């Protein structure tokens, strides 16, 4: 996110009285354009957000006359984090581990497909049409039907008895989630629709003349990929990591989402907040890695 707003330079507004009015007018116009979004943000995001934080510290009773709340402090947070492990740890941790395994697979797979789809070959148009299909299905309940069909698994993995192998070589707390991911490997491919799109669009930003130059210099395809394509794709990889995190964590099949119900407003709100903080943590880790990669790349870039 590097593009900065265009700002009037220092002094543009001050030079003359006549100069000042267009700048003020532009500000007014800008405010007019953004006003609906800001109003929407305050009503549909900021207010519910603050209210859910408030509710997470309160016991909420919905009565005919209105909403009654009584302060309970951090009781719900303590209950979720320390007392009742079932709500958070049994569902969330396997899911987080699965996500940790799935994110790299999704990224590598979609990068590979996008690079392949970017080549010129016969039938490319038809393949593109097929490869965007997940964007249509994968956002809905249809995917649930596919899982139920057993479409998620690859028969080769069951026939090789991968589960047993995994259980032998990995600690039990990880063997389960990783086994799940491998067992539903096809599903991982189904999650990659938008990511392929982003990589395809990103690949267009690397100019063909760079490849031309590399070819003239006698670089082989292997080093071309590592020296040109991959560094050029770093921002898109990062963008996709963020998108994948957000997407996985808000997916309807996610176990936590079903737990946020209208049965107990306070407890559900506390759970949602803990969950949100975990999402932020994941994104912060991704950001930190990105900053580090970027720093190690930048001396070569410029």
């Amino acid at each position, binding site marked *: 996110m590097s593009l900065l707003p265009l700002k009037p330079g220092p002094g543009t507004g001050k030079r003359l009285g006549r100069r000042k009015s267009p700048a003020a007018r532009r500000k007014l116009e*800008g405010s007019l354009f*953004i006003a609906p979004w800001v109003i929407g943000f305050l009503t*549909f995001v900021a207010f519910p957000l603050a209210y859910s934080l408030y509710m997470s510290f309160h016991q909420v009773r919905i009565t005919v006359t209105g909403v009654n709340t009584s302060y309970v402090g951090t009781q719900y947070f303590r209950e979720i984090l320390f007392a009742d492990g079932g709500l958070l740890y049994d569902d969330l941790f396997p899911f987080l581990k699965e996500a940790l395994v799935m994110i790299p697979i999704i990224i590598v797979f979609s990068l590979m497909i996008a690079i392949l789809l970017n080549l010129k070959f016969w039938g490319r148009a038809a393949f593109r049409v097929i*490869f965007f299909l997940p964007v249509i299905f994968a956002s*809905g*309940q249809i995917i649930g039907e596919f899982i139920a069909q057993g479409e998620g698994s690859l028969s080769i993995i069951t026939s090789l008895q991968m589960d047993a192998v995994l259980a032998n070589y990995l600690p039990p707390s990880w063997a389960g989630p990783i086994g799940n991911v491998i067992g539903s490997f096809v599903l991982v491919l*189904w999650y990659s629709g938008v990511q392929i799109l*982003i990589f395809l*669009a990103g690949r267009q930003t690397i100019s063909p003349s760079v490849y031309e130059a590399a070819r003239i210099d006698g670089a082989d395809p292997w080093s071309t990929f590592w020296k040109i394509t991959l560094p050029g794709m770093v921002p898109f990889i990062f963008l996709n990591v963020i998108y994948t995190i957000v997407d996985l964590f808000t997916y309807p099949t996610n176990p936590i989402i079903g737990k946020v119900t209208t049965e107990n407003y306070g407890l559900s709100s506390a759970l949602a907040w803990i969950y949100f903080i975990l999402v932020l943590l994941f994104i912060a880790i991704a950001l930190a890695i990105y900053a580090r990669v970027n720093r190690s790349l930048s001396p070569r870039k410029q």
Partner: protein
Amino acid sequence: MGKLSWLKNKLIGREADKGLLFRALLYLLLVDVAFIYLKPVIYMITTMVKDASDLLDPAVIWVPTGIYGGHLAEAVKMLDYAKSFGVSLSVSTLSAVIQVISCSIAGYAFARLDFPLKKLWFAALLFTFIMPAQVTILPSILLFKELGWINTFWPILVPTLFGHGLKGALFVLIFRQFFSTLPKEMEEAARIDGAGALRIFFKVMLPISRSAIVVVFLFSFVWAWNDAYFPSMYMFGASDVPLSVGLSKLNAQLAMEAQEGGLRAFLEPIKMGASFLIILPLLVLYAFTQRWFVEGVERTGLVE
């Protein structure tokens, strides 16, 4: 020696995408993945049209001996297809059209205009993008209850008016990205001619944003069509439900019937028929728009 290098060139190629070996591998990989994507759809269609004898015959897997419409008819009835289809179509179309307009306005403001606290609001936009809807869902339900909008479409449509709603933040980001890649000259020329921001936006910028509009419209439509979470949260008691909610109701009903002793011999074909009915309109829409869509994705600079 010369022959050998000629052979090597032919097989591996001078460039990554020229050798025969590479080509073979490329097609192998692409066909495999394409098959993975197409298989459930094919399975869905073939299962749906199998009649009782085909379903019981283990020799019939992919190609049914005849086409039987009974399961599909059952699914149409159970989903209340005509009505649910109308609901889904109107909700998805409305929210897609509204989101295109409202998100493009906000995106344009973020890309090109100046307003107070711009950085703060941009941070708010990113925040909205990464925030799971579950954090705000309960207060939103209370808010809409207060307004008397529960079991209506307003909780889904009203936020889109303001550039929010399902994935609204992502659409604002896409438009912002698109507008900031456009050259500034046209706007400046229009500004010198004395046009205001509103005029510039509607007369100059929107007409040249077809690719971004197509991408956002399709995403918005498809996601609104498939989404079952918000409708089930806001419209749990409504009789007019979109297809996505209809499917989960159908599943629940079938499961209940199966428990009670099974009135129906075959659940799978009905489920497949229902799934097919839900994605069919999307497939038709995609078939008509895919050309613009693919082109749009490449041009939008969907990405930073």
